């Protein structure tokens, strides 16, 4: 993957490029101004020299005329002729330079000087050939000469002004050049500072992002570790509670199964217990603590111990649940649903009480499986709740099934779940499987996804003769 240059570098480079373009343009402009200024200064200097030559030529004309007028020596007319020959050319050069310099104020003065000189020549020429000194003409000549000199002086002043103006422009250009140079230095320094600051900020941001990412990673790892630790503990507790060995009685066959939720967060507080109270009586319990994780597992353990403790004092299921409920309400325990039951193997009587728990299923030979009557509030909700003890008489070969809600709520349609459970119970009874609990569990969860923990406890009532034969076989086998 191509790595793009950082935005700060691009911005700085763009700024520098713009700056270089501006500086080059500025330098060229300054150079142009200076070049023009120097060229104009040179032109003005040359024009002023020419202008002095103009004055000298005019003076030669005047001197020659005046000398000849006094001495009538033709030799004295030599400067006059030279001046008269050179003056038009000199004035033409002055005019050319003035046009180049666009010295508009000098143009009328030059024209006037040319015309004045021409008039003076026209006036003094008759004087040369008449060999007379005309006083009036002499006076007019003086006026024309003064005017000519005034024109030349005016041109010189215009040139001088332009020279000063050129100097000022050159000085300004030099000031601008200095300014550009200083600006360049400052801009380069600013760009360097900007780049450094941007780099620093970028570095700081990267460092912060790295720190945040690292913190996030650590936090995630810690949370994951904590969650895994909690899940491990909850799983361990759950397995330990669920895997308790079941009592073996001559006329009862107990089997149990547990299904752990596939979703980690759903590991909950389902449990079952079967506690032999005497040779013929077994106390049964199955329950489910609301919630998941360690809290649910701990609450479950507490409820189990309470149930067993209360059953040892008074095994009447309704009394057991009432006492446990009162203690759980006092301890502000999470809500718990449970069924407490008492099975008498000798009379095949099942007495039970339910606290908000799904109804047990009883299947008697020759009859369809059915749900037993339930309908009291869960444990831990209301301390005044009374739990009725129901009594059911079963027959040899009957199958009693206690379970938690995970067995019927897998599709969130409880009626459908109950129908499937009844079918699974009837199928297990019909096939007379060795382990009805596992058979029922497998029948359900081979068709439906496990969404919550589920526990199942199955009790099969054996015929006394079958039980005796089975016991005899076992003894023979042992011998």
């Amino acid at each position: 993957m191509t790595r793009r240059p950082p935005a700060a570098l691009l911005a700085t480079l763009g700024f520098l490029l713009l700056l270089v373009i501006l500086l080059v343009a500025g330098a060229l402009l300054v150079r142009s101004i200076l070049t023009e200024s120097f060229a104009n200064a040179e032109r003005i200097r040359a024009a002023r020299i020419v202008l002095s030559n103009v004055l000298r030529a005019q003076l030669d004309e005047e001197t020659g005329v005046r000398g000849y007028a006094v001495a009538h020596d033709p030799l004295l007319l030599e400067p006059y002729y030279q001046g008269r020959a050179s003056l038009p050319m000199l004035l033409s050069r002055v005019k050319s330079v003035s046009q180049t310099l666009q010295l508009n104020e000098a143009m009328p003065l030059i024209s006037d000087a040319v015309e004045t000189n021409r008039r003076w020549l026209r006036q003094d020429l008759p004087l040369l050939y008449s060999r007379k000194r005309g006083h009036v003409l002499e006076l007019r000549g003086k006026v024309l000469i003064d005017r000519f000199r005034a024109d030349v002086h005016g041109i010189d002043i215009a040139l001088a002004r332009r020279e000063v103006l050129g100097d000022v422009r050159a000085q300004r250009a030099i000031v601008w050049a200095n300014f550009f140079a200083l600006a360049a230095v400052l801009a380069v320094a600013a760009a360097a500072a900007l780049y450094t600051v941007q780099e620093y900020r970028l570095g700081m941001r990267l460092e912060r992002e790295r720190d945040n990412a690292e913190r996030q990673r650590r936090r995630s790892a810690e949370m994951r570790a904590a969650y895994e630790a909690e899940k491990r503990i909850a799983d361990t507790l759950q397995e330990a509670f669920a895997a308790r060995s079941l009592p073996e009685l001559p006329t009862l066959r107990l089997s149990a199964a547990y299904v752990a939720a596939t979703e980690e967060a759903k590991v909950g507080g389902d449990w079952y217990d079967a506690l032999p109270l005497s040779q013929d009586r077994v106390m049964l319990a199955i329950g489910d603590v609301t919630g998941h994780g360690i809290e649910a597992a701990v609450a479950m353990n507490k409820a189990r111990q309470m149930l067993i403790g209360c059953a040892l004092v008074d095994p009447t299921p309704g009394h057991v649940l009432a006492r446990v409920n009162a203690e759980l309400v006092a301890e502000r325990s999470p809500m718990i649903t449970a069924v407490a039951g008492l099975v008498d193997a000798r009379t095949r009587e099942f007495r039970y009480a339910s606290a908000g728990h799904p109804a047990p299923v009883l299947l008697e030979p020759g009859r369809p499986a059915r749900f037993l009557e339930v309908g009291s509030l869960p444990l831990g909700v209301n301390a005044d709740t009374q739990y009725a003890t129901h009594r059911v008489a079963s027959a040899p070969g009957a199958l009693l099934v206690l379970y938690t809600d995970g067995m019927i709520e897998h599709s969130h349609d409880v009626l459908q779940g109950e129908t499937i459970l009844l079918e699974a119970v009837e199928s297990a009874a019909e096939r007379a499987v060795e382990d009805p609990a596992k058979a029922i569990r497998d029948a359900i969860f081979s068709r439906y996804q496990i969404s919550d923990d589920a526990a199942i406890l199955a009790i099969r009532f054996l015929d006394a003769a079958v039980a005796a034969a089975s016991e005899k076989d076992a003894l023979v086998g042992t011998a």
Partner: protein
Amino acid sequence: MNQSDSIKTLRLSGELEISRKDEIRATLRRGGDDRAILLDLSEVTYADSVALTELLRFCVDAQRSEVPVALVVQTPQFARIVQYAGLANAFRTFDDRDAAFTYLAESVES
């Protein structure tokens, strides 16, 4: 104040699960100071144990405060849950909203 003003109707629908715990609590909290509450669960099809806990505790608290509560349950799936969870025996449940309203109106009058 007429009777309908003194009876507050709280309505929940769909599948009530742990993921909707806050919503359920917020709905039930709206019935704080009313003289009678009609809890309309006619469109509820399922409630997990966490949602049931919220409903149960709300009903028990209302009972302790001597505020009459009537539950309207219509879907057979949820009716079965209500039945084995003990709600049907511990609180007044109806499969008809008008009947529940009449019961609450009489409770308020008396």
